């Protein structure tokens, strides 16, 4: 089994010199961006859940209030 | 169990022969890809086998997925799914039968595509028919093993058809790759240890996927 069939070219030292720092920064920026986006999404879902909890609480209170004092017929 | 298997295989094949819902589309799709390759391939003759194997198996995969998707989706659409489950047959047997039907469909596709590729791309794919037969058989079983299992999975899901290709392709890449390499070597006439290594890989994947499929199909079809 021969892998790969086409050998990639090795970068020249001068080219490497120019791109080392940039590559390092790009990689860490990519990781940071992905993590930040995921955590932001988690936060958004948590806020959505909090809103649902509040809505549910409201509905339960309303239901309790209706059961305790039945409305007078018009 | 063999009788039950044969019953399902026979039922599916007869139903396809009566209605011709999938096979014509599948064969036409494969032919179109063969034409496109024939038009595109402007390479010198000694380089053509390198691409021919890969493109042949990609064509077989994409065209064959139509048949595989149909195997379980049609049962659900027509409402036959529950009937099939009521029949006293083990899920593994249903899986193996559907696998056989899909492998037969792919075999029919290959009977058309391999000569078409050989002619249009001018690649000697038919020079070692025994070798090609073995590669085609193992490749079929490998692709259909994963496809049948996952087709049962996405049968009830929204946009199940397009989803099927999306989830099957990554899993069968090793199979398609091995089959393509083996085809390339067969077309170049090099049936030595390297070719046998690819064939062993194909056999290993086929065995693993068929075992996994037969075990997991029970969970797939139970609603």
């Amino acid at each position, binding site marked *: 089994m021969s892998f790969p069939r086409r050998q990639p070219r090795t970068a020249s030292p001068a080219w490497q010199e120019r791109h*080392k720092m940039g*590559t390092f920064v790009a990689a860490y920026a990519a990781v940071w961006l*992905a993590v930040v986006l995921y955590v932001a999404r988690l936060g958004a879902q948590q806020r959505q859940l909090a809103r649902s909890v509040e809505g549910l609480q409201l509905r339960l209170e309303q239901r309790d209030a209706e059961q305790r004092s039945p409305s007078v017929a018009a | 169990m063999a009788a039950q298997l044969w019953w399902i295989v026979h039922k599916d094949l007869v139903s396809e022969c009566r209605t011709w819902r999938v096979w014509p589309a599948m064969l036409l799709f494969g032919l179109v890809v063969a034409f496109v390759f024939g038009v595109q391939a402007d390479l010198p003759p000694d380089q053509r086998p390198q691409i021919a194997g890969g493109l042949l198996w990609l064509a077989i995969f994409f065209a064959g997925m139509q048949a595989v998707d149909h195997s379980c989706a049609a049962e659900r659409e027509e409402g036959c799914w529950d009937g099939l489950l009521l029949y006293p047959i083990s899920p593994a047997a249903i899986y193996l039968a559907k696998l056989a039907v899909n492998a037969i469909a792919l075999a029919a596709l290959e009977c058309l595509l391999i000569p078409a590729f050989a002619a249009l791309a001018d690649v000697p794919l038919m020079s070692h028919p025994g070798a090609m037969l073995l590669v085609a058989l193992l490749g079929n079983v490998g692709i259909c093993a994963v496809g049948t*299992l996952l087709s049962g999975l996405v049968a009830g899901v929204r946009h199940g058809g397009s*989803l099927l290709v999306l989830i099957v392709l990554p899993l069968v890449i090793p199979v398609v790759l091995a089959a393509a390499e083996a085809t390339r070597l067969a077309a170049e006439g090099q049936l030595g240890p390297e070719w046998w290594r690819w064939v062993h890989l194909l056999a290993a994947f086929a065995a693993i996927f068929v075992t996994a499929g037969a075990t997991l199909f029970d*969970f797939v079809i139970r609603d």
Partner: protein
Amino acid sequence: MPRTADLLGPSKERPGDNLGTVPIFAQRKWDCPPLGCRIIPDVLTGSLVAAGLLAISLLAPTEKTMGDAQRILYVHVAAAWCGLAGFLIVAASGLLYLLRRDLGWDHWAQAAAEIAWLSCGLTLVTGSLWAHAAWNTWWTWEPRLAATAILWAVSSGYLIVRSGVEDPHRRARAGAVLALVGAADIPLVIMATRWFRGIHPVSPQMEPAMRVALLLSIVAFSAFFGLLLVRRRGQLRLERLLGAMEREADG
């Protein structure tokens, strides 16, 4: 006020089963944890991550040939390990769901799948950047890279299939089957450098300081993604609880 366990309804398909696998004290812990339980894991993980970043930037010496681009290794290896472990968790949770039919396991699977997808994608991206620095090519068809790409594609398919199924139990079953078949790729990723010949680096020579930095980076990454996993799983569980309570309030 009904008990949590009653409200959630049958989390298992067999009638009469309730939230059986999680004991009561653990339920309370994750539903409304006291302040200490909320803060301590975060603080601990935060300090581990900070230590890891310090180690990567200050402790680890600059490598001779690759320069600073070599530091990508610390993040790339950690992300790869998290991706593989994450997908293993997905497959294991899926298997446990199929055996026990308890939706609690499915929450672990969903959370782990998101983490694994993210980690695997980051592995491919950071690896690609490193390859561009080292070999002047963004991608090469090499066994380990191909296997990792397959793993990423499988986890993407997993998330897409899950989003297409409404019923929780059917969704859990579909995910479990897909994860178990996809788990066949994990040994391929791990053993790719041993079974096939390729150009992916295998155990390069490293100074002790570099090894420490690498270890610390892996631990920090794992802790962080583990924290995300647990939080996300808690969120999913809360969603199910809320859904049950809403149905109770309506019906």
